[in-house]
């Protein structure tokens, strides 16, 4: 039986009871501040306890933000980094990075793909989770055709390598049409948004598998606890 991976968030995992095969790709998109990076952190924490090598590519902020975030949840970041089980890759500071792993010179999507691939090659014998947060930031300067071609070839390569990948997209950054097509390249789509009354907005999440035609259209409420992370309320429908 093939090993399958989960998000590490109970309610969300119940929505995909069979889990995701390594080689699957997850698209997470949503409003700014809704909790996409927190979800990425949960995904990494789950990978660490399951013995995966977790690679986090930080594009919007320095990797230290994720390092601090994990520490706040009492993750022994140093133990995992020293053992080479957690790689925080700086794609934010570029040449000025003081991180052990960084991706510089991202003015070409081809170059990015090669640099990302180089890092993955170094861990080819392991079970790997990859998070790019956020991929949409990297794609801003490029044309629709280039972006779609990049997705096609990159996701194909990740699938071949058996990488369980989670790409974060910030809503409103890329063209809606590009996002719709992009969604079809991924095995699992997760949408996070704010809803409810403006005075008291609620965090909502929808999860589905676009490729198999299944999409759980019912948004579920979730909260973010400073101690436990994302707490999903699967039985509370909006």
């Amino acid at each position: 039986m093939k090993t399958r991976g989960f998000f590490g968030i109970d309610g969300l995992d119940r929505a995909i009871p069979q889990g995701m095969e390594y080689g699957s790709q997850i698209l997470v998109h949503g409003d700014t501040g809704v909790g996409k990076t927190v979800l990425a952190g949960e995904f990494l924490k789950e990978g660490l306890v399951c013995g995966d090598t977790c690679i986090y590519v930080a594009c919007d902020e320095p990797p230290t933000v994720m390092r601090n975030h994990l520490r706040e949840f009492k993750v022994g970041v140093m133990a995992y980094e020293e053992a080479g089980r957690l790689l925080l890759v700086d794609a934010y500071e570029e040449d000025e990075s003081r991180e052990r792993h960084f991706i510089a010179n991202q003015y070409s999507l081809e170059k990015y793909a090669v640099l990302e691939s180089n890092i993955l090659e170094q861990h080819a014998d392991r079970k790997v989770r990859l998070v790019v947060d956020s991929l949409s930031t990297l794609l801003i300067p490029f044309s629709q055709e280039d972006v779609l071609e990049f997705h096609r070839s990159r996701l194909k390569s990740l699938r071949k390598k058996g990488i369980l990948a989670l790409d974060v997209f910030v809503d409103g950054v890329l063209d809606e049409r590009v996002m719709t097509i992009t969604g079809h390249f991924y095995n699992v789509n997760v949408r996070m948004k704010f809803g409810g009354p403006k005075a008291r907005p609620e965090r909502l999440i929808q999860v589905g598998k676009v490729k198999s035609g299944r999409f759980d259209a019912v948004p579920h409420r979730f909260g973010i606890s400073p101690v436990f992370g994302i707490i999903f309320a699967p039985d509370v429908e909006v």
Partner: protein
Amino acid sequence: MMNNYEEVYLKIINSIYLTLSRTTGTIPFGGSHFLEEITRGVGEQILDDYGEQLIPESTRPSDICKAYLEGLGHLEFLDKGAFRLEDEGNEVIVIMNQDRCIYQDFCQGVHEEGLLFYCPRLGALQSALKKALNVEYSTEVEFEPESGVCRGRVFPVKHRLRTEMVHFMDDTLDIAGERAVLFTKDVYLSFLVAVNEYAPFILKKVLFDTGYRSFLVVAREVKGHYETPEDYLRVCFEEMKSCGMGRIELDLLDISSSHAKINCYKSFEVAVVKGIKLYRTPRVTCDLLRGMLSACLTVIFERPIICEEMQCAAVEGEYCEFHAYPEEENEVE
């Protein structure tokens, strides 16, 4: 030259001790303590019967031991020439020739079978010292096969394992004076299943915190009694093993960087989840022990330490591997 009766009696005495060693080795919660109590108890009985004739020259531990040995020599029971006693601080070093010791069959049997061992002769000296000085003593002995000499130590007890202090009296069980209860892995598993069903997101943290908080008290208590970190950790690990957590061994200790690697064999937490589909995917499971180890290292390094389980026998391998590092302050972003 021993007569037939003496030989038979010696065989009986030696086999009684050997059987006691075999039996106490299988007793949970301080089998070793019980064996020590038995060997010491025999000495106490002799003292009760003949103690009035044993008058030491001074209150120096070696003089008290000499008086005891000489007393028994007068009773024509002991070949006192087989012993040499030396003071070393408040300890007594006892040098003995094994071929002149009446317990040599017991001693050899214990070493061959790898059993618990307390030397009955030293146990008697331990009793004499306790009676004379009202101080708890313990003993240990090393045998040098080349010279045929046993080197024993009788030393004041620094600290007793909590798990050695288990009593069942007046319908209540207590460990080191604290009310206790025993339960099997099924009860523990039921607890895990219940938490996992109602609030799965808290399980890992609850187990870690439980281990951490509960062992912090024990770790602080142990720390005061041991000078080297290795000795302190050995006692902490012994305490965890006596509680049934598994056999814990230190693999690496770097004091300068407050870093340690620790392995656990036959982890209780692994045994609980083995063959049970508690989690969706195989994962590291020893969070209770992880918390205990973090507490133990936090006390010895005097700074917050966080221990991660990097490999768990519940997933693969023969043992669980823990890596500990200081809990770092968040960096300025």
